[in-house]
């Protein structure tokens, strides 16, 4: 009582409201913390496809171990095998989850409607109750399932034809004989059709790349040759040049352009490469590039083209600041991209005491797909 009184007496209304607000926020945090629901999964699930060529008629072997830990029954009368793009089983539709957010989309080309159960080990006694293009229901007289590794081999399954997508078999077992009612275990196995060497079933991935003094849109022509003459070195002024490159791809992995080479050098004498983005300063030993429009000096252009998902790396995207490091990525696209035209700006500054010589470099711009 005394404690309550002290608390009450010692707290101004402002503090009281503050404490109440904090308590409310903490309570809300605790109340709304959603716990992941526990789902009992089959153990040691795997899928072996004897021939993963797209569209091939082949044998599938599904392996699993029944999991009896925490299940409401160990009596198994049926197994459902649902073939979908999305490996995640659907949540039960409820007022909180009124829409099935994991609808099963049948992988294009897949057909299990003529599959036969050719072998089974572990928990056995199953036969095919029903089958459609993308679903097989196995049934048996309901009986207890032990936690032993089991395999089910199916012949005459026709593979999906799309090699750009993995696909899954959603597995679930039931005490009923027709895969109805509440499931006991669930889980998915994942696999993928692999392109046959001589079989092109999809649009082939293409990577387009060009480099020159000037390049046309879509790399359909170049001009100005493959070298850039920067003029005579002069400690009072910055030597400048530009070149262009174009890159684009229809591959979902996108592309990456990396610059390889050395700084400018004449024998053992070198002009220092700028290791960090730095402004051009005549009279200093500097060699650097960037891929954006500059105003000091007036040089270069911003990337051009309708692709909206391309990216110039941060160190090479600062106007009026230049850098160069062998092996740096200078531009990239994270996925499919129209041909984008990049203008590379080069600057060279030299100190007054630079040793005489013809300073040169060879830069290799390398465009690669991403993995």
């Amino acid at each position, binding site marked *: 009582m005394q404690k309550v009184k002290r608390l009450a007496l010692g707290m101004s209304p402002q503090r009281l409201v503050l404490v109440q*607000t904090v308590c409310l926020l903490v309570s809300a945090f605790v109340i*709304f913390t959603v716990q992941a629901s526990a789902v009992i999964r089959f153990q040691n699930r795997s899928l072996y496809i004897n021939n993963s060529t797209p569209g091939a008629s082949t044998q599938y072997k599904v392996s699993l171990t029944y999991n009896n830990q925490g299940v409401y029954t160990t009596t198994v009368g049926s197994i459902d095998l649902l073939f979908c793009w999305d490996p995640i089983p659907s949540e039960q539709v409820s007022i909180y989850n009124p829409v099935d957010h994991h609808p099963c989309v049948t992988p294009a080309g897949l057909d299990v409607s003529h599959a036969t159960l050719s072998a089974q080990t572990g928990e056995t006694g199953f036969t095919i109750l029903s089958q459609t293009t993308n679903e097989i229901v196995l049934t048996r007289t309901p009986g207890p399932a032990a936690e032993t590794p089991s395999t089910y081999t199916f012949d005459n399954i026709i593979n999906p034809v799309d090699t750009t997508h993995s696909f*899954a078999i959603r597995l679930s077992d039931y005490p009923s004989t027709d895969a109805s009612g509440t499931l006991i275990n669930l889980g998915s*196995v994942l696999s993928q059709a692999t392109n046959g*060497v001589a079989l092109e079933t999809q649009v082939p991935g293409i990577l387009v790349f060009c480099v*020159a003094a000037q390049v046309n849109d879509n790399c359909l022509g170049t001009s100005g040759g493959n070298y850039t003459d920067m003029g005579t070195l002069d400690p009072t002024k910055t030597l400048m040049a530009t070149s262009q490159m174009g890159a684009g791809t229809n591959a979902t992995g996108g592309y990456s352009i990396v610059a390889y080479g050395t700084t400018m050098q004449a024998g053992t004498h070198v002009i220092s490469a700028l290791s960090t983005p730095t402004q051009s300063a005549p009279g200093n030993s500097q060699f650097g590039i960037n891929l954006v429009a500059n105003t000091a000096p007036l040089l270069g252009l911003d990337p051009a083209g309708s692709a909206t998902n391309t990216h110039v790396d941060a160190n090479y995207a600062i106007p009026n600041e230049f850098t160069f490091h062998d092996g740096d990525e200078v531009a990239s696209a994270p996925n499919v991209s129209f041909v984008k035209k990049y203008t590379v700006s080069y600057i060279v500054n030299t100190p007054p005491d630079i040793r005489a010589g013809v300073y040169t470099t060879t830069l290799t711009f390398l465009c690669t797909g*991403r993995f």
Partner: protein
Amino acid sequence: MKRLFGYLSAALAVLFIAASVMPVSAATSGGSASLSISPRKNYVINPGQTITDKLTIGNLDNADDLHLSLRMIDFTFTNQSGTPKLNLAQNAPRTPWSLIPFTTLPKDLTIPAGTSKTVNYTITMPKNQGAGSYYSAILYQAGGANGGNVALSASGVTLVFASVPGTVNENMTLQKFGAYNSKDNGTTGSFVFIDTNEQPKMVAYALKNQGNVFESPAGNVIIKDMFGHQVANVLTNSTQSLALLGQTRLFTSCIKTVQQKIQTEGGTSKNTNCASPGLKPGRYTASLDVLYGQNGNQTHEITKVATFWYLPWWFLAAVAIVIGLLVWGFFWTKRKLQAAVKGTTYRKGKGVHRLWRK
């Protein structure tokens, strides 16, 4: 003799000075430096099997021929991204996963202007080769030139991945998962727990591959609001990106995407950009469920739940104003009530309970 030596010395000096100050202008162009290639090849090769595949290389330049030199090189990963780190040095040591010893490839090619050429190459997997993943890259070098201060060279690369089936060691561990902020569709960015500037447009997870095969996990991220309503179902790794051997790979996915059709040689594709997901201020829960596993090997599943808040500044300001108004309203009402009931007013610093007890 002395005079001759003097003339020669003078001539050499003039040559040296000329070489020092004059730019090199005579140069030969290396022809076309405009090519189209296949960016990636994937194979399943059994031990003892030889596969022969075709490489189609296009010269997009309508004026000059394309002179190419081809060679196989090894590569590994660059940080957490899908950018390969190529071993370009001629004498670079081979990686344990190299395909170079198994590959036969033409060395030089000339492709006339505006045409394409298809060449065969083979990969022969030795009979005793163990199950696992092997990868190297085909380097196409073009456009070399002599002359100028800066000579340019263009190179393209085809990444080649081969899997030898069998029992393999697969082991991926989740390093990080959550909402992800990126201005460039995931090329760069960072994980975010509370976002006050803009709605997180991406989710991401980092998986470390400690097995002996490259992996391409697939699955979903379900995002729910603080009331348990599902607001997004994000398909992850739809581009079939790979985590290479030893790599910690970051997989990013847009919560909501917009697509742009792209017409390229041979067909139409779509590129993807992240769009605003339309999140309302509040707390969100993201549930990750991804699977991975090679053909015939155990399917592994990784699950994780993460939370993030979207609390924009305008929302925080609005909440502060509302709380301020509530506090002000509370005391205003209390004063009015006290004045009406007891004929007195609240005195600052005395405490509300004490006043009520009086």
